[in-house]
């Protein structure tokens, strides 16, 4: 069972308190009605399914109830970071460096 850091509670809690909510940073258009068929299918159906670092949404559903974003490595299952909804994507190169340093320290 993973431990996940909720950026709102500022605490690490067990995975069972959270619900996964799909890929992050997919914005709903403010002009939904004007989307082309292709635009809509990209918005609704297509996902990156990355091998490596993925950005995804989680909800602290059995905690504070807030949706937040996470950068997670889909191979190692390690969370690189979690951050509040609406915040920009973190700098990936910096995150990976931090991880490497953290690994070297232990």
């Amino acid at each position: 069972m993973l431990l996940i850091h909720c950026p709102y509670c500022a605490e690490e809690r067990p995975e069972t308190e959270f619900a996964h909510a799909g890929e992050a940073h997919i914005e709903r258009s403010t002009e939904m009605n004007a989307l082309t068929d292709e635009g809509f299918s990209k918005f609704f159906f297509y996902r990156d399914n990355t091998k490596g670092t993925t950005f995804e949404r989680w909800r602290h559903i059995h905690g504070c109830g807030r949706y937040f974003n996470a950068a997670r490595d889909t191979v190692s299952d390690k969370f690189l970071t979690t951050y509040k909804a609406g915040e920009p994507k973190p700098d990936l190169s910096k995150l990976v460096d931090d991880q490497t340093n953290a690994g070297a320290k232990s």
Partner: protein
Amino acid sequence: MNAPVLIQPNRIAGKGRLSVADPMRFTFDGKTLPALKGDTVASALIANDIHLVGRSFKYHRPRGIVSAGPEEPNALLGIQRDVARHTPNIRATVQEVYDGLEATSQNRWPSLKYDIGEINDVVSPLLSAGFYYKTFMWPRKAWDKVYEPFIRNAAGLGKAPVHKDPDRYSSQHEHCDVLILGGGVAGLSAALAAAKNGARVIICDEQPTFGGALHFDTDIVIDGMDGFSWAQQAMAKLAAMDNVRVLTRTTAFGYYAQNYVGLIERVSEHLSAPSADLPRERLWEVRAKKVIIATGSIERHMVFANNDRPGILLASSARTYLNHYGVAVGKNVGVYTANDSAYAAAFDLKEAGINIPAIVDIREHPNAELVAKAKALGIRVLTGHGVMAAGGKLRVSSMSVAPVNGGAREVIPIDSIIMSGGWTPSVHMFSQSRGKVAYDAAKSRFVPGVYAQDCVSVGSCNGTDDLSAIIDEAIKAGEEAATYVRPNTSQVSISIEANGGNAWEGTLIGAAPGAEAGKVVKAFVDFQNDVTAKDIRLAVQEGFQSIEHVKRFTTNGMATDQGKLSNMHGLAIAAEALGKELPEVGLTTFRAPYTPITFGALVSHSKGALFEPTRKTPMHESEVAIGAVFEDVGNWKRAWYYPKGGEDMHAAVNRECKTTRTNVGMFDASTLGKIEVVGPDAAEFLNLIYTNPFLKLGVGKLRYGIMCREDGFIYDDGVVARIAEDRFHVTTTTGGAPRVLNMMEDYLQTEFPHMKVWLTSTSEQWAVIAVQGPKSRDIIAPFVDGIDLSAEALPHMSMAEGTICGVPTRLMRMSFTGEMGFEINVPADYGRAVWDTLYEAVEAADGCAYGTESMHVLRAEKGYIIVGQDTDGTVTPHDAGLDWAVGKKKTDFVGIRGLKRPDLVASGRRQLVGLKSIDGRSVLEEGAQIVEDPNQPVPMKMIGWVSSSYWSENAQKPIAMALIEDGFNLMGKKLYVPMANEVIEVEVCKAVFVDEEGGRLHG
């Protein structure tokens, strides 16, 4: 007269650590045998000179005890405590004897010595690797009659228990600074170092006593005492410390993400009469800041012809039996080895008075000191020799010895062979933690390489062989772990003095001489799954190149022992056959559990009534009192129908439906999901969430709303009441409440975060009583205060706040039956009192309570849909005949774009219509398929399916709803529902069967 003393022929007086003062009895296949307290079933059987303990899985070959630990592949027994407590496949080398234990051998009939299945050994060419895949290909018909019964009979070892498990299990979460897996020299040294430095430590070991290899290696002296005594003292010292938890009989079975490790503690399996207070097993779910892996290593067998004969076992296991249990494995013991450890075992046996006719060493030049010592003890050493085959069947009787490079064979009579092919570091836990192993070519072994988690390996599982090096490495790991988790503590150093340990040299992986390619012999690699060296070569020959494929084709390493002995041999043979270097072929993945664990321990208390919560409405007990029959809806118990005077369900539902339409009925609707939506932007928010327009809904008015996903398919529905300008009372389907709230929160938090809206689940806060029927107003009127109930003041689809029975209420004039009706929301705590009062009035008026079944019929008579029954996640509002509920002038709502997708506006979509049975009596089966032409060949073209179907007492005919291709254009068309024994003719109609004009709603 004293009871006759039962002789244990292989028990050696003065050897071992068990006391003759603690005798016990147990039975094996019905025969009573003596044992000593502390024996395992295996040590006690060998003490009684019993090696034959089972038949092998595939060939039914006689099998004996191979090891003295959890790696045991052969000695799997059924252990029976009483009728309900029979556990199959228990390793005799792990199960401790308790007084009265009953053990039975497995996979044999009629008896262990005469087993019919042995024919498989003779016809074994038919059962070679992959035989399941090849043999049972065709003909198709033979599957049911021949192959499947054969496989079912042959498959599986042991017998599953037939009774419900009567035992209790428990589970516990635990957090610690340092978790240490293994209580041998390395684990204990690390634990002492970490604990002395203040870390909170858990140390576990799968055996009843700590010490690991110190159980057999009596050459080791630590801190001035013999190694085993040191281990007991170290354990006692640790157990006395407040910051240490010591767990014996506890196996670490799984290593999961972020240092989450599963341990299984066998609490009472070793007790003759366990107290009822004790669980059978306890599951520990440990989250550790640092894990120290000290799991040791496992000795390998030698792969030679007939190496599976009972009496052939691992050298150091034989040493364990002698030095710990005081049991010699035989009287005349041959030794076959590629590793020095077998010499130590031979010396101990010889010194205990056992005859050692020869040490057969595959190496030309083994350690000269050992050879000299052997000779000094009078033991013949045959270097550069191999055992070409073992003789005997139910018990090994000879070994046929020849020079490795060819030459004459010499047959040496023996009654046991001890063997060593070298040692395999136990990297299971490291590998489960997702660490990557590295190949140590000099010693032909895999050791921990790149770590993936916060853990460290110490001792022989780390490839460290020298005793002093092991202790130094372990102390360092313990101290560093403590400092790592508590950086501000000053470090305390400890030192442990040890000598006498041996770094044993020598290794053989793969087939031994005499079993190499081309030799038609049964040289077993995997005892438990009956995989021979030949099988592995065959797999390669048939084109399997990946070790993962070879493993699955041959089943090597796939038995319950997970190939603890066989993996390295299998890999080496495959590598040789492929002409590749071993690391290129790669090791198969280690998976949890390390050793088999019970489902009982995993399930723990989460079974029976505690499996999941039961939800009951506030009125539940009153419904029970008036005889309701309940059905499960999700976790809810819902009143299904209320039989009277011996009615069956059909009669009760007919009466309830009739009474409601002609008089009055009441219904517990408390399970409806309810969400309070509040805030200045609440109307705007609901306008985006629902397909319907919500901005102009007046205060005190209700609206039926549909919610879609972005793809345009119906997600949920319900009635929304506007309580105030900025406050809405939203209802959802019974099962839909959590997901609807989740979806609303999602949009509110992430897509429309600028909106000032707050969402609160109120499902459990309101009890809801529906009172429906022409007399509904008359029934409730006497109890209502502060609300004008007249049709003018409170028309259909409106609501008001006031009191009922003196209790505050949100009283809604609405209907899911098509009759005039009210849904009375009261605070949950008052639900039962209001229900009881109204029920009395309804009864007095010859009305009735109705349950969920009648609710379904009544709504179907009106064609009202149930989301999830009449929709399946691919139905649009238009498909469901609810196009009117989609706001055409709206510029945005969830699903607005999805609804315009080409497929969703295309013709020929399945649409919700009504169906009449033409014979006027056949009630269709829900889920039944519909065709246009019943005479077409099978498989027929299905054009739709029945979603709801009932007998309507009010319409006096069967009624049904169905999703049918282009259904709206098929009104009046005759279609067919083919069933197993008949074809039912139906006619498409509008999905309204009662009061088509809807006048009854407005009374």
